[in-house]
């Protein structure tokens, strides 16, 4: 694991012994005429949490959906441990150990929690049929850790509350030994207590060496949990900074005005005047 050397005043990259777990380099994608993501670069090291911040429509979800295989990029490269990989569909991403909790949760509403947990990688009996009982048993275990009060294993997830549905989506992402976890607004539907639980979970996964992209609208969450943060605006990266090198107001300035503070490495989306002034 990389050791973090603290006390850097300058926004230089910390020298690391190994290449990043994930590097997304110069990624672009357009829908019709809209450049949803415009030459964005982010990276992530093992055991690191990187927060992605930005207004609605900044391109955060689109960027991570390229990583999870939901969208095909128009331009740019994805590297895992320094080697270029080709991710053209969600199966590719999963095979590489990339698991995603989508902002929309992406649950099949008409089937139960266990069926969603195992969707696409069902357990089967030795006759090749679905092993629903084993899947439900596993599901009870995972959900017992995440949401001990959950009992509604027999109902389609459509009948569940927002928080329960979110637990199912989280369970699905962490149950299959992910190396890289993408969490797109994972606490959006949760109450304070459940949000704190997810925070604990993130710390635990981080300690296991999993790299996490955490998209959140809550700056406090990001400062609590993330090692670094990247701010996006209009599809472009404003800047990337270690959470120890910037403060709340500076990050708000990045999000709202695209102003890159001295503690951050500016990206293509940074205000030109700001970088000139620095």
């Amino acid at each position, binding site marked *: 694991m990389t050791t973090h050397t603290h006390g850097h005043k300058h926004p230089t990259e910390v020298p690391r012994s190994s290449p990043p777990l994930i590097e997304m380099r110069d990624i672009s994608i357009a829908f019709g005429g809209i450049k949803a993501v415009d030459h964005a670069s982010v990276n992530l090291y093992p055991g690191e949490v990187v927060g992605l911040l930005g207004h609605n429509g900044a391109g955060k979800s689109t960027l991570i959906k390229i990583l999870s295989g939901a969208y095909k990029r128009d331009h740019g490269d994805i590297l895992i441990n320094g080697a270029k990989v080709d991710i053209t569909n969600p199966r590719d991403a999963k095979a590489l150990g990339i698991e995603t909790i989508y902002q929309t949760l992406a649950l099949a*509403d008409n089937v139960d929690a266990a069926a969603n947990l195992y969707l696409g990688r069902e357990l089967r009996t030795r006759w090749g049929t679905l092993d629903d009982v084993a899947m439900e048993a596993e599901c009870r275990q995972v959900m017992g850790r995440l949401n001990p009060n959950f009992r509604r294993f027999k109902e389609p997830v459509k009948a569940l509350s927002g928080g329960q549905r979110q637990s199912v989506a989280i369970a699905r992402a962490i149950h299959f030994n992910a190396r890289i976890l993408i969490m797109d607004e994972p606490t959006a539907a949760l109450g304070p207590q459940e949000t704190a639980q997810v925070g604990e979970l993130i710390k635990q996964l981080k300690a296991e060496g999993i790299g996490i992209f955490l998209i959140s609208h809550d700056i406090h969450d990001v400062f609590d949990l993330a090692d670094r943060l990247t701010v996006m605006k209009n599809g472009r990266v404003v800047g990337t900074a270690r959470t120890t090198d910037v403060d709340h107001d500076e990050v708000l300035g990045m999000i709202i005005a695209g102003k890159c503070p001295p503690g951050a490495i500016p990206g293509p989306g940074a205000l030109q005047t700001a970088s000139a002034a620095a």
Partner: protein
Amino acid sequence: MAATDNTQNPAMEREGALTRFLRATEIDSRMLGMLGALLVIWVGFDLASAIVRGGDGLLGGTFLTPRNLWILLVQTSSIAVMTTGMVLIIVMRHIDLSVGSVLGFTAVCIGTMQVYWLGPALGVGHPAIWIITLILGLALGAAIGALHGTLIAYFGIPSFIVTLGGLIVWRGAAWSVIRGETVAPMDKNFKLIGGGISGITPGSIGATASWILGLIICAAIVALIYLGRQQRKRFNFTLKPVWAEVLLAVVGCAAVVGITWVLNAYYWPKGVVDRWALQTGAVVPPEGLNISFGYSIPVLIALFVGIAMTFVANRTRFGRYVYAIGGNPEAAELAGINTKKITLMVFSLMGMLAAISASISSARLDSATNALGQFDELYVIAAAVIGGTSLAGGLGTIYGAMLGALVMQSLQSGMTLLNFESATKDMVVGCVLVFAVFVDQVYQRRVK
């Protein structure tokens, strides 16, 4: 029963007895509703026919007689087979309007092969003819379905359009093959698939085999309930109360025994018995000889297809994916499911089922015409919808759709018994479809 009465939870006490019963037995309340509707229709027609004409039916009419019920099941089987596939298609938020035309086209192809190619080549009645033509027919149906599926999944053309085109194209193709003529007669072995008597060979399995089959099905019901319970015990899941399991087993077995008994109570007509006696040298006593029909081959085919399709829908990955795609296509795609491949497979399966129905229908009529299966697509879709399949996708059961097919056919047969004009029958069936969906929606809203 006493043990279940100490409810600790006040909310439990407020539930009605019916709700508690349904919860304990895990019976789908919609299925109970359908069985109730079926009962009303059957009783109603028997009473109505008793008034009109009188007969030896259960209530004095001509509907609830072994003969009529036996024929009713045979007539249901073709639509019932196809509706099992239509359920999966509608669950996936698609539609297949082409099944009737595909049925017609495959039927004339099967007929042409039997009458014009294999008959002359191998000798009429050669035992290989029925199996070769059946296999080729199924392959043809599957290929047509795969073509539809490819256009829908990989070319992105809406299924409504592709299969609307298919409805027109395959009907035309059926005409082109035989230029509007009737192909007849079908191969004598093949004919048994329709359930009729071919010479002195019946297209049904007789009393003894029917009882054996009935007992096997009863044993299977008991075994499934028992094994399911053991499995849940192994993982310490909550179990259904024992009385509920026993009740399900008893009701299931009683139904099977009852159906078997009724089908066995329908005997060969006297003319066939005499012909049979003449050819085999058997002696018919003066009071006549009761030879039971028992389960007919088309009903057995429908039963087998129903069980197989239920298995596919509930116990295989493919089935799970069909439902997941219907529930949320985007989520299924993001979960790594190859939704295009599943779409292709579902339409191909539908084509094959249409070919099975083509075999049943043409064998039953002992001929194939280019009009065979006309409007079947509508009855197949209606059966699925009456059986609880939601056109919004994601919801539907195989047994529900098959029961829906039985409800529709019961209406048709009953009205025929009462000498309704066919135009009147069409109007009634159409209204019943709309009414059934309306009732279902009211019910669904109340459940929520």
